[in-house]
């Protein structure tokens, strides 16, 4: 063979020719590095600072960190506000998700049908999610105003509100001034905001179902509701889980709605952990207390994230 004869001629350009722009490994790391540095510097570092704060006596005025152990947590837990904020945070999230998942399934099934004006309908329905949450909440604040709520006018007009009616003698509901009404208002806004997101996620799931399977079901004589409950919904179960988990995270960690709508009131009946952490940590300057309160969010988030990973790995297998 001629191998030996020609093989010895080595290219002089050979060295370093496969430079950086061709080296997959080096290019890969170089491309990923900025993102990782950014995330470590501004997510991982503050996260550990948050933990450090919660075990210290730091305040806005006093920058030195002295270790005080679990003192902050102990002090925070003892207050009645804490119990209420924790219950509210979990309760609001839970009730919101139950309502959202029911409504979102209905809405997604409707939107997966063909009808005229679907594009407009989808846009109107997505609007609450696309709107800055603070501005949406301001709209609700005005909608639920203690004196000028249009709901009051309609309720009075329909004979549901006012003297000698079921809803009482006054002519105003004062939605945000009564414990249960205020809580219901907060949940309503969460539902209003999360419903669009869950719906479009489920809708994407429904439209991604293989048409062959649906055709097969039709050939097998399955009608609309049978197909829906025995084929479509079970198939999009993992995606439903994703929608629920996103919903949980966005409700559980939100502070905007309560901050703008009720500021935790009346008294502290609608207080939630993030808002309380803000009031304590920033408004009153007790950084350590604020950090400790915010950290109570972490275990729930961790559980959600683990669930999410398991869902993701399950869909990968499919």
């Amino acid at each position: 063979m001629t191998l030996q004869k020609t093989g010895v001629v080595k290219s002089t350009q050979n060295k370093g020719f496969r430079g950086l722009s061709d080296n997959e490994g080096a290019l890969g790391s170089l491309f990923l590095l900025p993102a990782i540095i950014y995330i470590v510097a501004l997510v991982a570092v503050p996260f550990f600072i948050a933990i450090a704060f919660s075990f210290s006596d730091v305040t806005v005025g006093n920058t030195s960190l002295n270790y005080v152990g679990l003192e902050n947590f102990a002090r925070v837990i003892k207050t009645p506000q804490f119990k209420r904020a924790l219950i509210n945070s979990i309760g609001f999230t839970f009730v919101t998700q139950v309502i959202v998942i029911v409504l979102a399934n209905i809405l997604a099934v409707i939107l997966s049908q063909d009808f005229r004006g679907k594009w407009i309908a989808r846009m109107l329905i997505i609007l609450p999610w696309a709107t800055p949450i603070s501005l949406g909440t301001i709209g609700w604040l005005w909608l639920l105003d203690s004196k000028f709520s249009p709901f009051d006018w309609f309720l009075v007009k329909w004979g549901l509100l006012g003297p000698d009616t079921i809803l009482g003698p006054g002519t105003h509901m004062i939605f945000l001034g009564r414990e249960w009404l205020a809580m219901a208002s907060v949940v309503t806004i969460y539902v209003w905001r999360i419903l669009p997101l869950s719906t479009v996620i489920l809708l994407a799931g429904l439209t991604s179902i293989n048409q062959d399977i649906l055709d097969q079901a039709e050939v097998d004589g399955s009608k609309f509701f049978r197909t829906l409950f025995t084929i479509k919904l079970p198939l999009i179960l993992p995606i439903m889980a994703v929608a629920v988990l996103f919903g949980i995270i966005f409700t559980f960690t939100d502070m905007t709605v309560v901050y703008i709508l009720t500021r935790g009131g009346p008294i502290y009946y609608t207080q939630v952990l993030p808002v309380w952490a803000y009031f304590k940590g920033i408004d009153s300057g007790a950084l350590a207390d604020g950090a400790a309160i915010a950290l109570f969010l972490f275990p729930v988030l961790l559980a959600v994230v683990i669930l999410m990973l398991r869902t993701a790995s399950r869909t990968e297998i499919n």
Partner: protein
Amino acid sequence: MAIIETKGLKKYFDSVKAVDGIDLAINEGEMLVILGPSGCGKTTLMRMIAGLEKPTEGEIYIDGVEVTQLPPRNRDISMVFQSYALYPHMTVYNNIAFPLKAKKLSKKYIKEKVEWAAKILGIGELLERKPRHLSGGERQRVALCRAMVKEPKILLLDEPLSNLDAKLRATARDELQQFQRQLGITTVFVTHDQIEAMGLGDRIVVMNHGKVRQIGSPEEIYHNSNDTFVATFLGSPGINLIERNNYLVGFRPENFLPREVVKQKKGLNKFPLRVSRVEHLGADRLVYGETDDEKGVTKVIAKLPSSITVLVESGKKYDFVVQEQHMRYFDDQSGIRLKVKP
């Protein structure tokens, strides 16, 4: 002189030995076909020649220069992918001009070159279209045009006909061969289709499990297969193998004929055939059946051209024969061909 040489070329993906030690010398101007079942490592071998895959071990030489570590763009090669890989966002013109632009040639020169290449392949009309508006055959020509426009030393083709429908494939094969002869460009063609390989190749490399099983002209590998793998992989159906004490007997279905149609008297190997099924394929008849031999019953197939009109019916027993010159013998352990009858 060999224009491409590989020396002990290996590629392992984790524990999978995709290519397991290949020494190959490809001659200038020839059409070399690499043939093998899917997963035999033929595409990996080609991708290493192209520079898309780094060998785990071994060297590659192009025109006497070691290129093992060079990126594709410094190897003076072109490649047509199985999917054609036409850039969907560019017009046909820009697709073809793309390799020339990489060389930073003048616009005028690029235009002349693209038009010249497009003319050869008869796609002058298509230059302003986007790939998604082309038919399968047109896409294949554009891909070929893009590959040849920079006049590379070597053209690599990765199953470029497999996306065409059967009828188109035959004409495309013909065109491809004419085109290659016309330009005299060294071409490496990877396929799993033996008809393509037989029809196109000056030489064929048969691969299996990352190793070369045989290199030779189409006639050579078909009639003088090196081992049982090559013998059974080639031909449709493949060779009949009958086990005997410490060796294997092989004969091709088309050489397995009814006793009465063979005029010869001497040097015949007789095999009684119990016919189980007869398939009429138009030009041929396939006769499936069983034969008894030293080590029991073996399933065999005979392929009778339509010129042989002898009545063969299923369920009946006939005398079939093979002429001695068509008999092949293989080692029963290694499967390697034995040159003399044991």
